[in-house]
C-alpha cells in the first residue's frame, strides 16, 4: 500500500486504506486513542528538550502529522497530468479561507514557471490606446482586496450519473476560497480607453494552453480584477503567478491564469473553452452555452467518506456553501435524507461571491444518518436535488452540477457517498 503522502494514493488504494489514511491525516485516530486510554498524564518528551530552530523551515510547512492533507489527482480521470486537476482536500479544512498550498489546481497545459520580470500584459483591440504592462506597472494602480470562491464548472461532474467518488475531496474539491489583492479590471480598461463598439473582452493565458474566454463588458467593468496576491502572498504558479483574472461568482475556467493579453471586441470569440468545452448538453441534444454564474451550492465537508465520525455523542456537522449569483442567506441541514430540515448556524464572514462556513451540532446515537445540506442565496435560489437537475437537463450536462449531496453515516468510522429517493 502506498503512503498517504503519495499524491496518487487514494485513486489506487482500497476504500478501507483510504479511510485509514484520511482518518490518520485528520487526527481522528488520535482522538479515538485518547478516549480509549484511561491513565494518568505524563510529561511528554517534547516538553523536556528543545525543539527545532525558528527558521528550520524558511517557508513554513504543516506538522508532519498532517502529511495526508494534500491536493490529489485522480489517475484515470484525465489523459495527462498536465491537462488535469489536483483537488482541494476539503474534509481537512475549516473556516472559509483555503490555504494556497491546498487550493485546487486545474491546468490545461501544465503549470509554467514564469519570470515576473519578463511577463507582460497587453490590452488591445477596440481600445483608444493599446498599452503593455509589467507586473510593477500593475502594482502601481489603485488596489482592492476581495474574498471570493473559485469553482470549476466541472466540479462534481463525476457525480452527474450517480454517486461515484468516495471522498468529498474528489466529489466537490474543485473549489477554493481566498482573498485576492489586485487592480480592478475597470481601472485597466480606463487606462486604455474603450471604443464605443466595445462589447466583450477576451482574456488569454500566457501558458502552453493559451486559454481564452469571452467575458461581456458589463461584467468586466463591474467586479473583475487582475490579481497578483492571494491570501496575502504572491499567487502560486499553479494559481497563475504572476497575475490572473478574477471573475467573481463565475466559472473558474474564465479566471484566466498567467494572463498575458486582454483583447476588446464587439462579438463573442467562440473559443475552444466556450464551445467544444464548458457547454452543457441538454436532453434534447442541444447545448447551453455561456453558462457563466455558478449556482448556489453547499456540501458537508465533515463528516465525509474520508473523515467519518469516530465517536457517538456530541459531534459537529461542518460544511461550506457559496453562490455565484450573490450572497448565501441560509443553509439547511437534513439528518434524514431530505425529509426534515433544520437551519444551520453560519459562523464567520458572510460576503458576496464567497464561501460561508456552516455548522450543526448533533448528539449522535450511532444510528444511520443520511446527511444533506441545502444552500439558499439572496436571489431566492434554493440548491436543487440531483434528480431535479436531471429532470430538466438529462444526464449529459456535465457542467454546473450543484445538486444536493447525501452522505450516509452508516456507523462509527464509515461514511458513504449515496443518493436517496
Amino acid at each position, binding site marked *: 500500500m502506498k503512503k498517504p503522502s503519495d499524491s496518487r494514493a487514494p*485513486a*489506487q*488504494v*482500497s476504500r478501507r486504506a483510504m479511510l485509514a489514511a484520511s482518518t490518520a491525516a485528520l487526527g481522528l485516530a488520535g482522538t479515538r486513542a485518547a478516549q480509549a486510554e484511561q491513565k494518568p498524564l505524563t510529561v511528554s518528551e517534547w516538553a523536556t528538550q528543545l525543539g527545532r530552530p525558528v527558521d528550520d523551515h524558511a517557508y513554513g510547512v504543516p506538522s508532519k502529522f498532517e502529511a495526508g492533507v494534500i491536493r490529489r489527482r485522480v489517475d484515470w480521470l484525465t489523459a495527462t497530468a498536465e491537462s488535469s486537476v489536483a483537488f482541494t482536500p476539503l474534509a481537512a479544512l475549516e473556516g472559509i479561507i483555503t490555504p494556497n498550498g491546498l487550493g485546487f489546481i486545474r491546468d490545461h*497545459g501544465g503549470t509554467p514557471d514564469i519570470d515576473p520580470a519578463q511577463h507582460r500584459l*497587453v490590452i488591445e483591440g477596440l481600445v483608444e490606446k493599446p*498599452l*503593455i*504592462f509589467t507586473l510593477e*506597472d500593475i502594482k*502601481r*494602480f489603485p488596489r482592492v482586496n476581495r474574498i471570493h470562491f473559485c469553482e470549476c464548472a466541472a466540479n462534481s461532474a463525476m457525480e*452527474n450519473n450517480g454517486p461515484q467518488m*468516495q471522498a468529498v475531496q*474528489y466529489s466537490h474539491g474543485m473549489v477554493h476560497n481566498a482573498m485576492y489583492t489586485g487592480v480592478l479590471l475597470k481601472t485597466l480598461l*480606463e*487606462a486604455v480607453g*474603450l471604443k*464605443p*463598439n*466595445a*462589447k466583450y473582452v477576451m482574456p488569454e493565458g500566457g501558458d502552453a*494552453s493559451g486559454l481564452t474566454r469571452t467575458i461581456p*463588458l*458589463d461584467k468586466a467593468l463591474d467586479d473583475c480584477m487582475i490579481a497578483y496576491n492571494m491570501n496575502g502572498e504572491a499567487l502560486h504558479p499553479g494559481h497563475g503567478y504572476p497575475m490572473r483574472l478574477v471573475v467573481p461568482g463565475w466559472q473558474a475556467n474564465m479566471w484566466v491564469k498567467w494572463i498575458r*493579453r486582454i483583447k476588446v471586441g464587439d462579438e463573442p*470569440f*467562440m*473559443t*475552444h473553452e466556450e*464551445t*467544444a468545452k464548458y*457547454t452543457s*448538453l441538454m436532453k434534447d441534444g*442541444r*447545448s*447551453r*452555452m*455561456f*453558462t457563466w454564474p455558478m449556482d448556489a451550492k453547499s456540501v458537508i465537508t465533515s463528516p465525509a467518506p474520508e473523515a467519518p465520525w469516530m465517536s457517538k455523542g456530541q459531534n459537529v456537522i461542518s460544511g461550506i456553501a457559496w453562490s455565484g449569483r450573490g450572497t448565501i442567506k441560509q443553509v*439547511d441541514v437534513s439528518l*434524514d*435524507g*431530505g*425529509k*426534515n*430540515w433544520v437551519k444551520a448556524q453560519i459562523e464567520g464572514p458572510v460576503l458576496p461571491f464567497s464561501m460561508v462556513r456552516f455548522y450543526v451540532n448533533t448528539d449522535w446515537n450511532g444510528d444511520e444518518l*443520511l446527511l444533506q445540506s441545502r444552500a*439558499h442565496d439572496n436571489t*431566492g*435560489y*434554493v440548491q*436543487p436535488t440531483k434528480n431535479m437537475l436531471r429532470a*430538466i437537463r438529462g*444526464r*449529459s450536462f456535465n457542467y454546473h452540477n450543484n445538486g444536493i449531496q447525501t452522505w450516509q453515516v452508516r456507523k462509527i468510522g464509515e461514511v*458513504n457517498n*449515496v*443518493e*436517496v429517493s
Partner: protein
Amino acid sequence: MSKFRNFALAAIIALPSVAFAAEAAKPVSKVAAKDYGLGTPATLDMYKAYLIDVRPDGQGAPVGKGTVKEGEKLFGDQCSSCHGDFGEGVGKFPVLMGGEGTLTRDHPVKTIGSYWPYASTLFDYIDRAMPFPMPKSLTPDQVYSITDWLLNQNNIVKDDFVLTNENIGTIKMPNGNGFYMDDRKVAEKSFWNANACMKNCKPTVAVTAKAISLNDPPKDAKAAAK
C-alpha cells in the same frame, strides 16, 4: 454573421441583467481613456506575436492555406500518437471524428463533426495549444492543412477543398445551430423557491445508489444501487 445576431438576441431575452446589444445603439464609449501614466503605449508591431485569436467570421485568421492531403500527412506525424490515425482517439485523449446522431443518447460522443459549432475554433485551438507537448510550433499553413483534413474526416469539406484565411469564416458546421444562450433563469425558474419545505417533505427516504469504489468508472444509478 446572422448567427451572432441570434446569439445577441437570445442574450437579451435570457439575461436581462447583462446588457449586450442594448448598448450598441449608443455611439458613446462606456469607458473614456483616463491617464494613469502607467503602461507602455504600444504599436501593433510590439504585440503582434500575441495576436493568434481567430473569430468565427474569420477575423484574425493569418494569411495562408492548407490541403486535405497535406493535413493527412501532418496529422500522422504530429497528432496521431494521441488522437489515432483517423482522429478516433487513443486511450483517454479526445476523439475528433464521428459521433453524429449521438447527442441525445446516454453516452454522447462529442467531436468536431458532431459537436463543435465553428471551424474557426478548430484553427484557433490547434494553432495555440497543439500539438499538446509542443504548442505554437506549427506554421499557419500547417494548421490550415490539419484543420482541413479534420473537417474532411468529418465529412464537412470535400477531398479537394483548400482551406484559407479567406474561406475559414464560411464553413458551416453540422452542429452549428446546436447551441443556445444560458437559459437557467427561465428553464430552472422553479429553483427560485421562497417556500422551501422544512418538515415532512417526503413520505419515505430510501438509498437508491451508492459509490462502490474509488476506481470504477461512472455507474448507472440503478446498477450501483444495493
